[in-house]
């Protein structure tokens, strides 16, 4: 399998605090990785660096064979909107746009907004009939599904999810995880940051972080397609 993403000796230092301390990690194409650890272990920092939303203090980030750690902020933005889809714990939908419009925002900044495609994306997450609803009219699970639809609309190579089920009940959690499985089958790489074992155990590979260092990196034997 070819490498999609490689972190080489990444450190991120905030003043005295070493949020990430000389971390190296490789993500293959089509791989589903869970990054787990308690609060303050450096999960969010790592996600920001992978998602091109932050720069490491030292070390290299190689994405698809290209070193992006020295790129300008604008290049990073372009890179990130082409290759990566983001899913947040708080969904972060624009509250004055309806579901389909929220999906189209991502299209708009990527290329051209296309309502038909956006509706298809919503269909994939089972929300076609809720397309014209505002975020405030949707349940938490539905909002998260809109967020996922928005993440996949530009066919990214990597989906980056930050505690995607943190604000959801069990039924909705299962729906979201089903969608992840489906994406995985289609060959999309997934990086899911979570502290929830149940969610972590769904992944192919589990990486554990503690105090900014990787403490374990194991294949998940229980993984099922």
């Amino acid at each position, binding site marked *: 399998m070819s490498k999609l993403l490689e972190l080489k000796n990444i450190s991120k230092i905030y003043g005295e605090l070493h949020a990430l301390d000389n971390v190296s990690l490789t993500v293959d194409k089509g791989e589903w990785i869970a990054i787990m650890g308690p609060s303050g272990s450096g999960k969010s920092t790592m996600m920001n660096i992978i998602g091109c*939303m*932050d720069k490491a203090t030292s070390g290299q980030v190689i994405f698809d064979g290209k070193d992006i750690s020295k790129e300008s902020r*604008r290049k990073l*933005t372009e890179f990130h909107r082409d290759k990566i889809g983001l899913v947040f714990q708080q969904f*972060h939908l624009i*509250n*004055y746009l309806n579901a389909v419009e929220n999906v189209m925002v991502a299209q*708009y900044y990527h290329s051209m907004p296309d309502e038909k495609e956006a509706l298809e994306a919503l269909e994939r997450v089972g929300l076609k009939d809720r397309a014209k609803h505002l975020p405030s009219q949707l349940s938490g699970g539905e909002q998260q599904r809109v967020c996922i639809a928005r993440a996949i609309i530009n066919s990214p190579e990597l989906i980056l999810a930050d505690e995607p089920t943190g604000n959801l009940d069990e039924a909705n959690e299962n729906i979201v995880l089903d969608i992840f499985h489906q994406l995985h089958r289609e060959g999309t790489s997934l990086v899911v940051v979570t502290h929830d074992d149940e969610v972590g155990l769904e992944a192919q590979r589990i990486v554990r972080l503690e105090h900014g260092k990787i403490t374990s990196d194991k294949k998940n034997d229980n993984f099922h397609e």
Partner: protein
Amino acid sequence: MFFRMVRGTFARQWKKMLMIAVTVALGASIATAMLNVMLDVGDKINEELKTYGSNITVIPQSEAVISKLYDVENNDVQTEYIEEEKIGELMTIFWANNITDFAPVNDTLAELNGTEVTLVGSWFDHHLEFKKKGTVYQRDTGLTNLRSWWDITEGEMLDEQKHSENCAMVGVQLAAEQNIRSGDTVTVECSGRTKQLEVVGIFESGDDEDNYIYTTLDCEQELSGCGDMMKKVEVSAITSPDDELAVKAARNPSLLSGDEYDLWYCTAYVSSICFQIQEAIPEASASAVRQIADSEGKILEKTQLLMTLITVLSLFGATLGISNLVTSGVMERSQELALLKAVGATNGEVTLLVLTEIMITSVIGAAAGYFLGFAFAQVIGQSVFSSAVEMSGMAAFIVIVLIIAVTLVGSIPAIRMLMRLRPSEVLHGGH
């Protein structure tokens, strides 16, 4: 999509946008009101200054030269006059609308109960009609406005419609000396002709006129036997303060270059109005009453400067108020804007979106504010000067430019913040 996002903002976040629009409207209304008042205050104060009396006198062309040479013993016998029917020409000149009032002043020495007094014939509230080239010009004019400082101590002001032509107003000092009361009839003799005049009022003027008798023009013309002639006409006109061009033109208008001449002719300088009066009535000579004309210029200048500075202050206040709110309005939306960046928007795209929304809000606010401000200007105009303030295109232009500039400037800190905004910091908040 851009349009849908903008529309979404307005359709579903109208409360926030309304607040910004209201502030912009308030700022714009201050600006509009102040600018309109400032641009019109010159004319308004000028009208008020008309209470000082006429600022131009028109006398027969050759009177100035000839009367001194030949009428050595009696200055008031004139050889030259202005024909009464020619005076209507005053209403046909370029700056006719700036002429607020005019009245003939025919003075004659007459005898009243054996003492020599000055008798003045004039218009009081005269209705004048003048036909020229098929157009009928008409105007109510006369001393009633030109002697606004008169105190009527007894009786009333002479009214040409109500009273007969053989009525008179007597100066307070003369009335006291001769023991004349309002309602009395006095006999006036002049060059062998006598007339009985009914005294309708006693006035106090505070100057030499307290010793005069004022009567109607017709009555004076009959007594002095000068026919339908005028010896002197007092004109009160709204003028612009003199500047370098006016000073240059006053020396000799023919020395001006073509452009300068046009500018001078089309500006309401006292000298250009005088010049136009002479053009219209060639046998007359019009000259500025320096005491009035100069002072008007000075006071106008000061008033305008005062209003300008007050306006600048108010604009400054309005500016700060608006930019304040624009800034905080954008800051409030930082989370949403950070999200757009996380979804892949570049700084430029987010800035454009924010600016478009703010600009639309501002323009709506400014339009509402302009009309509100114009209403304020009218309130000011009506309550202070009892007349409407003119709508100025210039004020509208300045307000538009100002509001756009203010909105842009007010957005600068917000945009700088946007540039620095890290989506990662905002989006992971609230854990």
